Each structure stands twice: as structure tokens, then as C-alpha cells.
């Protein structure tokens, strides 16, 4: 056990670069998922029924798909569509498309809870489409921060699935070290502690943000 930790400590560069990759995947994935999620959200609350139904179908379908299967589908499917990209990019694309649907649903949930008067005022002034979204989105995003934080944690956790397409993130790094030196306990425990730290940081950030906005109100 102790010797295992010593080995992992000696290999800390591998672990830290894995942690950095996990962070990179999650942050870029989360930002893209939020942007794409806002677009899907706009479709979910669109006035035209076909647009709305298409968006609902997309969101419902995505919620039935396991992330790992979705990864494989993109990994093998994108080349058929004439798109070749490296594994890291496939990982980012998978994380952002998959979680965009979840983000859109969270935004819709926050939108439903929001007082109607801002939206009514917006439509009364003749805003619609993009113009109305510019009024609606900021308060929706602020109200949704705790839920978006949870989704961000989900993205961090899902990024571990990318080990199957050989993206060199934290779980991949831990697996490499355990395969080379046979120290499974120390290496995976360190990986778990890495994920835990990231999630605690996100939770702390969300708490800081909600307290700050509550104090300003």
C-alpha cells in the first residue's frame, strides 16, 4: 500500500497530466454543452409547434442513451459522415452534444419557475425570437446555476468513460500506472480523490455564487 503510493508519487506527472486533461475535457465540454443547450432550450420554448416537438424528441431520445454507447456511436459513426478527428476532439464533441440536451431541459425547468412578468414585458415591447432570448436567458441561467453545477459534475464523471476511446484523462492515467507497476489500489484511489476534489470545487463554486446572488437581492 505505502509502496504503491510511493510509485504513484513517482509517476505524479502522468497523474497530473491526466487530471489536467479531465479538467480540460470537462470545462470545454461544459461550456459547449451550455451554449448548445441554450439553442435547444430556445427550440423547446419556440412558438412554432414542429420546432418545439423536434426539440422535445431530441431531448427525450438523448435521455435514454447511455453516454458510453453514444461515445462509441460518434467514434465509429463520424468517419462514415466523412469527419475524421482525434480522440480528444471526439470526446469533447460527445460530451457537449450529449449533455446539451440535459442542459436544455434544466434551463427549461428554471424558465418555468421564473416570474412571468419579465417575459410578458418583453413580448409586450414586441421582442420575440433572438431579442426575447437576450432578455430571458440571463435570469434563466442565473436561476439554473445550482442545477447546471450538478450537470457539470455529471460531465466530469462522464469524461471518465472516454478511457474506452483512449483519451488520456485521469482514469486512463491511473490505469496505465496500475498496468505497468501493478499498484491498482494506490493509483485508482488517487484518481478517485482527484475526481472528488474537482467535484468539491464545483460544489463550492456553486455555493459561493448562490450566496453572492442571494446577498445582492
Amino acid at each position: 500500500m505505502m509502496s504503491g503510493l510511493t510509485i504513484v508519487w513517482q509517476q505524479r506527472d502522468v497523474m497530473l497530466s491526466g487530471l489536467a486533461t479531465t479538467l480540460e475535457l470537462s470545462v470545454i465540454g461544459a461550456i459547449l454543452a451550455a451554449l448548445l443547450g441554450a439553442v435547444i432550450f430556445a427550440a423547446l420554448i419556440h412558438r412554432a409547434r414542429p420546432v418545439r416537438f423536434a426539440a422535445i424528441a431530441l431531448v427525450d431520445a438523448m435521455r435514454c442513451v447511455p453516454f458510453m454507447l453514444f461515445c462509441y456511436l460518434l467514434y465509429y459513426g463520424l468517419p462514415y459522415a466523412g469527419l475524421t478527428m482525434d480522440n480528444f476532439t471526439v470526446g469533447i464533441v460527445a460530451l457537449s452534444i450529449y449533455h446539451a440536451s440535459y442542459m436544455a431541459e434544466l434551463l427549461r425547468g428554471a424558465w418555468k419557475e421564473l416570474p412571468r412578468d419579465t417575459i410578458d414585458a418583453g413580448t409586450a415591447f414586441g421582442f420575440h425570437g433572438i431579442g426575447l432570448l437576450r432578455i430571458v436567458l440571463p435570469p434563466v441561467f442565473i436561476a439554473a446555476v445550482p442545477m447546471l453545477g450538478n450537470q457539470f459534475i455529471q460531465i466530469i464523471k462522464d469524461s471518465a468513460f472516454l478511457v474506452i476511446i483512449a483519451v488520456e484523462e485521469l482514469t486512463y492515467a491511473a490505469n496505465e500506472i496500475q498496468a505497468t507497476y501493478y499498484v491498482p489500489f494506490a493509483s485508482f484511489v488517487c484518481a478517485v480523490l482527484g475526481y472528488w476534489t474537482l467535484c468539491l470545487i464545483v460544489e463550492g463554486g456553486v455555493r459561493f455564487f448562490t450566496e453572492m446572488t442571494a446577498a445582492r437581492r
Partner: protein
Amino acid sequence: MEEGDYLALLAGAWTTLAIALPAIAIGAPLGLALALIRWRKLRILDPIAAILVSLFRATPSVTLVLLVYYAVPQIGIQLAELPAAIVTLTLGTMAYTCEIWRGALLAFPKDQYDAAMALGMTSAKRFRLIVLPQIFRASLPALINEMTLLIKVTPAAAVIGLVEITRAAVRIGAETYQPLPPFMVGLVIYVFIIGCLVGLQRFFEHRQSRLAAA
């Protein structure tokens, strides 16, 4: 894809359920135990429960399944693939259901509890006859929702070699040199399983709102 390939995918579906069903059956009562510890604010145990929940909520199933499968034998316990996968998902389910149960316990009307106490019920009886039936009913939709999440992380078991739906699809794809058709069939199976659960969840939610209205 041939007939045998479809059968292999169905066998994979069986394995997926063989991982997920025991995980919820063991994980949900463990989650309830943790929730009760936190609800009663038991000394020493309460912070431990809080730490366990926080830790397992943050741990990816893929990482945890590798840890359980490769590291547990080091302390002298031999674990086959299936039990290792079940243990992994049980720990995650325990953490998530703890929060569900805790929410229901916190929302439980205190006056009923006081009334039961006034009738001279023992603490165990109060819990079994008054609290448990109601928090179970209140938590049921959320518990079923947790099951759909659980089904979606079962592919993690593929990394230690269990042939569930996703791994079965990968294998067929490798044999036939056509990866996409087996994945699409696998997708249909997942949509079917999760669709059933979502239907069940809506049924219970609907029944509850009807009961509340009556």
C-alpha cells in the same frame, strides 16, 4: 448482422439487468440507512455518512469499477466481474438514493410523528408503520428515475470484461466489420428498457397527484 448477433445483444441486455437490479435492490436500502443516520444526526456516524455520500456521488463508475475489480483482491477477497460491477453500482446508488430518502424525510410532516408518539408507539414502530410507507410513496418516482440513471452507467462494467449490451455490440461490430448496426440495435434495447421505467415513473407520479387531489 445475423440471428445469433441479435441473440447475443439480448443476452447482453440480460447481463445489464443482472447488474442494475441487484444494485438498486441493495443500494436503495443502504441509502435509506445512511439517510436515517443523517436525519437522526447520530454522533460520529453522521459526518461519516455525509463523507461517503459526497465521495461516491463524485466518483465515476468506470474508475470505481476498476478500483473494485483490481484492488479488492489485493486485500484477499476474490471478486468475479459480475459481483465487482454490482458492488460498484451499489455504492453509487446508495449515495444518490440517500439524498432522495433524506429529502422525503425532511419533508415528512412532524405532527404525524408527534401523534404516533402520543399514542405510545415505540420508535421502531413509528418508523415502520407511519414514516416508512409515506416516504416510500413520496420517493418512488425519484427512485425509478435513479434506476434509469443506473441503466445508463451499466456500460462501465464493460471495462472489466462483462459482456453487457454495449460490449456485446462492440464485439459484433469487430467481427462483422460493421460497427454501426449492432450499436443501433443496442440503442433500441436501451430505449426500450429506459422507456419502460419512464412509463412506470409517470404512472406513479400520476397516481400520486390523483391521490393528492382526492
